[in-house]
């Protein structure tokens, strides 16, 4: 009797609860940080304006939190013709996909957000495509033509870009020889480049093509400009989220930026060495504290690139996006794998 209670209270259940809470906290925090830094501030300055300045006193830091609270207070409107259950579930599924991706992100030598999986890369990319189901559900259930068109575009887009995304990562996996994200980081911290192990270097040096492909594909997966056709506000108004208001819309928003945070984290982990700092080999205990900060800095760097492109480029047309994926990105990714593989065998 007693041992079972201890098991549940002090054992797996508690760990599960704590970890769930951590991840659930991380998603909005990540979304907020990216949303504030890039959407509100960087975009404003790129457009030669200041963005919000008043809320919270210092450069409007409170703006997004206030927006969030406002969204929660708002009336929950569901269109009359909507498929209500599906309509309500859709935002949760989008956020769920973000949630599941966070699980495997390594923050330090002994510390992964929730679970150190051996198939981490595979897992992260697999669950990332879960969000498309949410998007499809949202589009279909809204009973709105714009939403439907948007969600169909999103589905087509996510399918088309899942492939280059995965293929772009394979180069990394070949070089590191593992799918475990933690091991990939360790490989970059003290790894070798095709037999030469003088320096522990981030894989971006050899996988620059892969990095570029990963960034483009991630941009498309996130449906950010230049690949934002699913939400294209000048054509489809807001695409699949056109009927969503209040906290359900907030879910989509958090999902969008939370996912951007995770993708930036994945890119930082796979290509930029994650929590590790090149040339510096410090004690694991210190790295457990400094690592997350290093990772965070790298995430911000990657996110900057992502959002920089987002605020600069016009969007493709759906068919142009498809031809870009199938005619250019996938062949390049395959060639990249071939070259990497050949070099790996050679050295």
């Amino acid at each position: 009797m007693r041992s079972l209670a201890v098991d549940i209270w002090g054992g797996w259940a508690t760990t599960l609860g704590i970890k769930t809470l951590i991840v659930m906290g991380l998603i909005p925090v990540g979304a907020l940080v990216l949303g504030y830094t890039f959407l509100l501030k960087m975009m404003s300055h790129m457009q030669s304006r200041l963005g919000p300045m008043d809320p919270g006193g210092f450069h409007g830091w409170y703006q997004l939190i206030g927006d969030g609270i406002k969204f929660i207070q708002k009336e929950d409107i569901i269109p009359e013709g909507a498929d209500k259950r599906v309509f309500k579930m859709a935002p949760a599924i989008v956020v769920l996909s973000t949630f599941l991706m966070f699980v495997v992100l390594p923050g330090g030598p002994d510390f992964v957000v929730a679970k150190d999986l051996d198939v981490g890369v595979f897992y992260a990319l697999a669950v990332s495509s879960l969000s498309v189901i949410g998007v499809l559900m949202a589009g279909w259930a809204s009973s709105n033509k714009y939403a439907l068109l948007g969600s169909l575009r999103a589905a087509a887009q996510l399918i088309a870009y899942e492939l280059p995304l995965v293929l772009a990562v394979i180069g990394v996996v070949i070089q590191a020889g593992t799918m475990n994200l933690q091991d990939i980081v360790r490989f970059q911290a003290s790894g070798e480049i095709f037999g030469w192990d003088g320096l522990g270097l981030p894989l971006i040096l050899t996988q620059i093509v892969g990095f570029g492909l990963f960034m483009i594909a991630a941009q498309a997966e996130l449906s950010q400009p230049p690949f934002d056709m699913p939400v294209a506000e000048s054509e489809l108004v807001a695409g699949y989220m056109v009927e969503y208001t209040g906290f359900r819309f907030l879910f989509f928003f958090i999902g969008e930026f939370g996912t951007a945070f995770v993708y930036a984290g994945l890119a930082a982990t796979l290509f930029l060495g994650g929590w590790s700092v090149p040339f510096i080999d410090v004690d694991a205990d210190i790295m457990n504290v400094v690592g997350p900060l290093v990772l965070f800095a790298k995430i911000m760097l990657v996110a900057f690139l992502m959002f920089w492109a987002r605020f600069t480029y016009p969007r493709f047309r759906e068919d142009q996006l498809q031809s870009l994926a199938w005619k250019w990105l996938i062949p390049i990714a395959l060639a990249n794998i071939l070259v990497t593989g050949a070099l790996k065998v050679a050295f």
Partner: protein
Amino acid sequence: MPKFEVDPAVHRGLADARLNVEIDNGDMILNLGPQHPATHGTLRLVVRLDGERVVASDVVIGYMHRGYEKLTEYRTYPQITTLINRIDWLSSFANEVPFVHAAEQLMGIEAPPRAEYIRTALTELSRIATFLLFLGEMGLQVGAITPAFYGFRDREYVLNAIESATGGRFHPNFNRIGGLKDDLPWGWIAETRESMRKVLKSCDEFEDLVVSNPIFQKRTRGIGIIPAELGASYGVSGSNLRASGVDWDLRRDGKPYLVYNDLDWKVWTHSDGDSFARYWVRLQETRESARMVLQLLDVMPSGPVMTKVPKIIKVPEGEVWVNTENPLGEMGYYVISKGATGPFRVKIRTASLSNVSIAPWLLRGVYLPDIITVLASLYFILGDIDK
């Protein structure tokens, strides 16, 4: 389902409900507008889609019809200038000029040279203001947010210049029959020169940010091609027609008006006739206009800005057609006077109406996102369509 035709009887009202919901026969009828971000106001487009490809489309206008032709019959000439400011609200000053010219021609008077120079400068400034907004807006319509802000930012300098001279940012009401309300304020020339430099720099930014962007080119090249002859028979005018290779600009080819003949400038054309060409031509024309303003500021003659006109303006009997090259295209007033203080009939020819009337022809067979590109590149102002 019969052939796509919007039944006139159920066209408004009933049609809304029907068109919004049904998906039938594999084709879908999509209702863009009257409140849609891409229709800059209240244009409504009923589009029949096959997948994302347009099978047929119908343009519905009139949501903002204000009946200017009727209103002018109830107003005196000085009151009308303030009214017609609101037709094409982005280039309101340019709207006033042809009307005031029409009245002046009927009365047989002419504004003093300084007034004509200032009119020309302000007309070109309003052209720049209109086009800067277009240059940004078009970027926005194809998905880039940033150019829109640049457009608004740099238009502000131009609007400031218009406001400090006329007192109104959007509705200057500065023209009077026989001249101008007032002379320029102190320091205006120097300030405007500075603004024109900013405009020229901004054009370079648009060149880098939008025109040379491969994605933008991919989205606009070959989309919405207007054949020159067809465009002309539809009454498409202005930059839209020049982008189809028609070298026709009323500032040069119309009846001489203002002081364009004293300036050194060039009419830009592009041979492609597609959305990209229309963007490109407008970009070049913005530059050209800025250069024209700079020239005008250099050679501004001194003297009065108003001729002697009677206090109560009565325009002698007669009729006159005055058309000018407005930012959006040919704008004209056919003024029929019967010797009263107000006109008997004013036919207002607005550029946007004819420019948009070609849209159903252009939109056949394009993809849904291209509708937005085509509409944005035709560049219309709802007030200019709906009158």
